[in-house]
């Protein structure tokens, strides 16, 4: 199998995202929005509601951030997302495992997906995405489906990537042809320079105060 192309350099990620008529900062905002909504879930919520929340709120975030001239709502096969008909690109959110945003390991979806995801991946094998080689086979809808994979868990770093799945088996994404890293686990976007905690950012020290006895 061909090695997946992993885009993890910040400038390249930004450029890849722009090719899709998207904005990296807005995309990160979508991920963080979904994550913060998930953080409101408590143990009083039904089991799995956290994952449902991420999916639903990421879809809402995508729509609120990008729908307008180029992007429109998409509900194909009851999978919420956004669609750019001109580019022939659809984006759907999905809960990924802890390998999301990790350029060295292959992620997959956390819970098994069904026929709708399988169909979209099959279609990906026949479509063309800007920046990739022209498609070999041309059938089905001709729309590429990208997955906004998010790993959001309490007390775990937030991770995310935008990926182009090409193989789906047993309810899981098995192979991604291209992966664009968005959040690698640190709070900052991937590959951004680390900010050192300088002396000026540390709390003020407790200092000795002079208390002097007066001479009588």
């Amino acid at each position, binding site marked *: 199998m061909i090695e997946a192309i992993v885009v993890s350099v910040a400038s390249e990620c930004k450029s890849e995202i722009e090719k899709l008529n998207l904005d990296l900062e807005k995309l990160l905002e979508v991920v*963080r929005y979904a994550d*913060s909504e998930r953080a409101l879930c408590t143990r009083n919520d039904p089991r799995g509601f956290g994952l449902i929340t991420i999916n639903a709120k990421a879809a809402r975030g995508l729509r609120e951030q990008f729908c307008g001239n180029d992007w429109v709502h998409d509900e194909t096969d009851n999978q919420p997302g956004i669609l750019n008909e001109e580019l022939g690109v659809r984006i759907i959110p999905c809960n990924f495992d802890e390998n999301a945003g990790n350029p060295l390991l292959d992620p997959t979806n956390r819970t098994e997906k069904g026929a709708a995801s399988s169909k979209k991946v099959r279609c990906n094998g026949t479509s063309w995405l800007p920046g990739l080689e022209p498609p070999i086979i041309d059938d089905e809808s001709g729309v590429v489906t990208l997955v906004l994979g998010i790993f959001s868990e309490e007390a775990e770093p937030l991770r995310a990537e935008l990926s182009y799945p090409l193989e789906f088996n047993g309810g899981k994404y098995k192979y991604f042809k291209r992966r664009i890293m968005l959040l690698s686990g640190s*709070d900052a976007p991937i590959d951004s320079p680390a900010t050192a905690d300088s002396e000026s*950012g540390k*709390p*003020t020290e*407790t200092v000795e*105060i002079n*208390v002097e006895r007066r001479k009588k």
Partner: protein
Amino acid sequence: MLNPERLELVRLRHGLTKIGFADKLGVDRKTLQRFENGDYELPNSSVTKLLDFSGYSKEFFGDFSKLEYPSPEGVSFRSLRSLTAARRNAAMAAGALAFIFDDFITSEYALPESNLTTEVKSVSPAKAALSLRADWGIGFRPIGNLLNLLERHGLRVFSLVEETRHLDAYSLWRNEKPYIFLNTLKSAERSRFDAAHELGHLLLHRHIGSSHSTAEAEADAFASAFLMPREDLLAEIPRVRSLQVIIEKKQRWGVSAAALAYTLHKMGKISDWHYRSYCIALGKFGRDKEPNPMQRESSQIWEKVLTDLWRRGTPLSRLAKQLKVPERELNGLLFGIATKANPLPQESSKISLRTIENNT
């Protein structure tokens, strides 16, 4: 012969009405009034009752030196509207005792002089806070120990042990010296915010008073900006993932989770919906329970002074006798330093005190 003014102080400290006080002494209101006017001496039985219930010594009541109370017009109170006059007067009377102690200590020790500039031009409270930070050379850094910072810059800070949740703190200027009184029965974070709030009053409202309608909001805005500079907040919390982030990060600025959440909400870092949810979640901890609490700050100056007095053979009990004030009252004003487990250094340890010429 007893000094009526001293009886009045004790009445105020106990939060009693005149009728209630007369009852305690076993006399009627008119008899007490005659005593106050100097027409009548209290019977011995009443004096015994007075000494018993008040805990004050006979020497205290026999002292005719003038007491100085905090001037009601010059005091900024941080309290709920539900604070009763009795509680308020009791706290003010504690101030009078603090002045007795402070005057004695000032005559014995040279303490840092106040360098708080109150010529604040018409700037916003937040700008005034940043300006003071610049004056004190701390920039945007979080304040490690606020009490230490205040004392270093000549503010006298006393504690109050008023058993009421209605009173937080008060502050005043006296003889060009700024004073802050903190109710230490609140959480450590709350006390810190109260101290910063009172610092705001001292700085912003010295000349115009703090009775106008916006004074409290201004002092709050000052405290918020002073403890949590916007620049540092933005650098440390670019986004809020969850309430847990707030509970962890609050330690940096030494504020309550509620205060940090409020500030982040005001800055637009938390949506209305999330802020409401966080408030509900924080409310579940309980009114006086602070998640991830910080250690309470205490006075370094009073600790050094008490240690030195102790070394010179004057423990707090003896000092209390000398000043004719009950030891528990002094201890209550001094953050309970004298009753802490090991407040005093071992014989072998050194103390950084030296003798200077008395120039007062």
